[in-house]
């Protein structure tokens, strides 16, 4: 840390570590730039950033509010999942127990897994990321606050749908991975499986929206000067996780859509009697399911990489190796999905590929573990050792993590070895392993994170001995519950059985497991009570109580105000080596970037990705009920599909589109504003006039998810063609040539029209936009023609797959139509100019991506046919 010369007043510049110090602050660029009355600035910022009282809470879009809602809701679902776990353990405590009848037991274990994976783990880290990232990065909110709120409502409504179905006795009962054919219509005739497929897909909207949100926020919403190599390591973790979600979730969403289409309309994607294959579901599910384990682990690891250095009193050891390890882990995690399918009869060479990747992933995991140990091993006292706790509650949970996760990792390596997995497959050994990995790798770190950031989130200091008691109860209870499952598993106890006989020899082990599970539950109850007491009676937290070195602790008050920072600093060194206690008062005085209140706009800085140089002022949207209404309308779509009222589903979907069309931000974008002062002598354009505004980044990021979904679909079709029984079909479906050519030409025309609209005088671009709209409509028509020409879709998976690919194309052409309509509308309403061209650029970008993707889809039938014929015996 470079100290200012004696007698020099402290400024943001003087307080930050200097590697490549930026230019000295210039003359104040606006009347409010430079020294401002902090109280007046605080009042002004609160007025425009605060969430209103009463019913206005439903209009909240602020990341702190939405983040906390995600976390609290996730903890409610965790409680529900925990109660279900208790029911399982009561059932298994004694041989031949009659506590739960088999059907109900199947619902209970299915919902336990579903709730914990989809409604607890993912949303909890999403909420934590939403809450922390803007504060860590130096922003006032996420890039798309309304998307966060919309994602939250989708999560809440989707999760509620699952729980209500369970209470109504219509819960899914095919296990949390819903294997076909068990989950297919003949073997699961009720609506339980539909509830799972639609409810989880509904919830996954929030995951995809969070992934887009997190990616764009980390890429461009950072404090000036915070280049990528200076980002706090938590941001690297979350950027990696978000990218994984964009690639990992689409296969599950696709699989759910295909299975629901099979159940609802008889399209036989997974029916081996009609050209489908149950193994396709396993591939699609585990393409999501295995990366999912790392998607859950990495945010927790990011929290560990942030808080361990705080308590060790030194920066993270091996920062570069840790970043490299987590990126490597992200990639490798996509190469192991088949290790859940070792027993499905794959050739040895395929097994070896996946077994090698499964063992390989242990290496980057170990790199992180050793980096944390090295950080702790080299701890040295901070300047004020008295103020630093020796062994905080957070560190207890870190200890719990080390012990439990390493054990889970080691059994993971055992299961990665094919011969061992063949023996342990579907036994309680696997149950033990996955709980050691997930509870060790997620729950303990998140509890550590919770205690670490509790003063930030609540403004309350935590110093309860009850928390230590809670930890030890959970730790002891956990090991008592799950360690013994390794033994029962090796003794042959299969997972998911509702009862076992007294002659099995598993009785005492199961009884001890069950008793221990209640010890663990009591531990959680103690933790919850302790937290509630802290929130209610805890003393007020002092600023930066842990002497952390990241920016989230430089907020002016605890808990932070809704705007986070009254001004933004210029970061000139690593953003995990700051001194928040010194920075906070300087920022609170408005010294730095954007330390003003202007037109009631919600401003934050946008920066270039690599260097972190400010390049735009991002105007964020005010509080609005639009996300709520959009969530309700989306819920209506899913409920209509669930109850098979399809016309209503179409109407509700159109309502969702109409609501989305109301999302574009208006007030600041109705005229050219030119470059505006942003503080520190810098002039910047508004995001609506910037070269690459956040919305363009969002579309690019979303294209990754769309591409992953298409790739999964094409993989599915080709997989069926070479692997499924009943191929080739008696009559290979041929798509008519004319609509295919028409669709290709229309795609090219739409791309060309959008490109011409974006070039030259955009104000004269209406005819081109109209042309793009018409061309997309032509694609839609051609797609309809091709689908109508197919043989009955229920007869064979070949035509069902082709129809699915065409529907993908049609849906994207429809979105192109909507984007063209939106650009036309915005052009006519005066929101488009040579500087404000985002609506047209969005269309151009969309069409540029859709053209090659569409041509691939149009060529897919030929590839499918060729492969099916080549695979003829």
């Amino acid at each position, binding site marked *: 840390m470079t100290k200012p010369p004696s007698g020099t007043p402290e400024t943001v510049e003087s307080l930050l570590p200097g590697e490549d110090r930026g230019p000295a602050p210039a003359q104040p660029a606006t009347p409010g730039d430079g020294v401002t009355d902090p109280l007046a600035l605080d009042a002004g910022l609160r007025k425009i950033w605060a969430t209103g009282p009463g019913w206005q809470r439903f209009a909240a879009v602020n990341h702190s509010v939405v983040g906390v809602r995600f976390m609290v809701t996730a903890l409610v679902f965790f409680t529900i999942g925990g109660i279900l776990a208790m029911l399982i353990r009561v059932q298994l405590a004694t041989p031949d127990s009659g506590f739960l009848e088999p059907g109900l037991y199947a619902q209970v274990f299915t919902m336990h897994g579903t709730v914990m994976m989809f409604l607890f783990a993912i949303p909890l880290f999403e909420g934590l990321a939403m809450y922390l990232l803007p504060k860590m990065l130096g922003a006032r909110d996420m890039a798309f606050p309304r998307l966060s709120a919309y994602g939250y409502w989708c999560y809440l409504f989707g999760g509620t749908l699952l729980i209500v179905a369970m209470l109504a006795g219509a819960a899914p009962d095919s296990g949390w991975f819903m294997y076909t054919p068990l989950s297919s219509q003949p073997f699961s005739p009720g609506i339980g499986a539909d509830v799972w497929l639609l409810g989880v897909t509904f919830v996954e909207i929030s995951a995809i929206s969070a992934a887009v949100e997190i990616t764009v926020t980390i*890429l461009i919403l950072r404090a000036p000067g915070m*280049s*990528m*190599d200076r980002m706090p390591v938590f941001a690297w973790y979350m950027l990696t996780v978000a990218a994984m979600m964009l690639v990992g979730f689409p296969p599950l969403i696709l699989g759910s859509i295909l299975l629901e289409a099979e159940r609802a309309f008889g399209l036989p994607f997974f029916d081996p009697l009609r050209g489908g294959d149950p193994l396709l579901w396993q591939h699609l599910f585990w393409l999501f399911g295995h990366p999912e384990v790392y998607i859950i682990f990495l945010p927790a690891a990011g929290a560990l990489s942030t808080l361990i250095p705080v308590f060790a009193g030194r920066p993270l050891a091996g*920062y*570069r*190796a840790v*970043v*490299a390890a987590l*990126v*490597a882990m992200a*990639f*490798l995690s*996509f*190469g192991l999905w088949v290790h859940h399918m070792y027993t499905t009869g794959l*050739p*040895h*060479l*395929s097994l*070896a*590929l996946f077994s*090698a*990747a499964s063992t*390989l992933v242990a*290496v*980057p995991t170990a790199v992180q573990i050793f980096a944390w140990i090295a950080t702790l091993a080299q701890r040295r006292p901070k300047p004020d050792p008295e103020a630093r706790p020796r062994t905080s509650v957070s560190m207890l949970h870190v200890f719990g993590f080390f012990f439990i996760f390493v054990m889970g990792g080691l059994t993971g390596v055992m299961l990665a070895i094919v011969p061992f997995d063949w023996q342990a497959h579907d036994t309680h050994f696997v149950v033990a392993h996955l709980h050691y990995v997930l509870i060790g790798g997620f729950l303990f770190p998140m509890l550590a994170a919770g205690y670490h950031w509790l003063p930030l989130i609540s403004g309350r200091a935590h110093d309860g001995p009850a928390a230590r008691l809670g930890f030890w109860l959970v730790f002891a209870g956990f090991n008592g519950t799950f360690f013994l499952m390794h033994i029962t598993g090796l003794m042959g106890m299969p997972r998911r059985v509702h009862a076992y006989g007294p002659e099995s020899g598993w009785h005492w082990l199961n009884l001890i497991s069950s008793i221990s599970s209640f010890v663990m539950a009591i531990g959680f109850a103690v933790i919850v009570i302790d937290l509630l007491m802290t929130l209610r009676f805890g003393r007020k937290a002092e600023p930066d109580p842990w002497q952390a070195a990241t920016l989230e602790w430089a907020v002016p008050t605890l808990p932070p105000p809704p705007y986070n920072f009254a001004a933004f600093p210029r970061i000139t060194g690593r953003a995990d080596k700051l001194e928040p206690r010194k920075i906070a008062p300087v920022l609170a005085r408005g010294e730095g970037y954007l330390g003003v209140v202007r037109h009631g706009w919600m401003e934050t800085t946008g920066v*270039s*990705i*690599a*260097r972190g140089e400010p390049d735009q002022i991002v105007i964020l949207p005010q509080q609005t009920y639009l996300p709520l209404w959009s969530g309700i309308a989306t819920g209506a779509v899913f409920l209509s599909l669930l109850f098979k009222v399809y016309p209503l589903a179409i109407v509700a979907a159109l309502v969702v589109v109409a609501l989305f069309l109301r999302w574009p931000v208006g007030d600041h974008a109705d005229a050219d504003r030119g470059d505006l002062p942003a503080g520190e002598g810098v002039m910047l354009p508004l995001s609506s006039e910037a070269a690459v505004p956040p919305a363009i980044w969002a579309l690019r990021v979303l294209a990754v998810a769309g591409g992953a979904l298409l790739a999964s679909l094409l993989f599915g079709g*080709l997989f069926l063609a*070479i*692997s499924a029984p009943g191929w080739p079909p008696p009559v290979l479906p041929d798509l008519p040539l004319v609509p295919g050519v028409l669709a290709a030409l229309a795609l090219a025309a739409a791309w060309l029209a959008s490109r011409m609209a974006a070039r030259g005088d955009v104000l004269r671009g209406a005819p081109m936009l109209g042309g793009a709209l018409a061309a997309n409509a032509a694609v839609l028509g051609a797609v309809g023609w091709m689908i109508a020409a197919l043989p009955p879709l229920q007869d064979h998976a070949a035509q069902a797959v082709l129809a699915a690919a065409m529907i993908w194309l049609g849906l994207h052409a429809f979105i192109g139509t909507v984007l063209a309509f939106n650009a036309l509308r915005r052009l006519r309403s005066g929101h488009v100019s040579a500087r404000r061209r985002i609506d047209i650029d969005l269309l151009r970008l969309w069409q540029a991506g859709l053209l090659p993707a569409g041509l691939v889809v149009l060529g897919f039938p030929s590839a499918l046919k060729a*492969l099916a014929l*080549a*695979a003829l015996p």
Partner: protein
Amino acid sequence: MNAGTRILVAIAGAFSLWALVFTVIYAGHATGCETGWGLAPALGGIAPLRIVLVLIALAGLGLTLAGLWLLRRGAGLAPRLATTARLLTGAAAVATVYNFAFVAILPLCA
């Protein structure tokens, strides 16, 4: 190539290549076994399918090592990012060898 793209390629390029090689080998192997293509021993008693798979793996390794060579002086990246990129590219090279060596050894379709 702008700075953002350069970072993306340097950080994610090598393992993206690993993922591509993984996909092509897995898909090519499955397709070859199902269609029966290239299974009959040909050159030196080695099945053409195996030769193709090995060549794909070697191409992946060669490109990864080329990337490592390009990164030796940092490729214009900030020092910390350059080190991270070198670590990742080196790790991808090791992963390529460890992961795909089996295509030269194990029975193809048994």
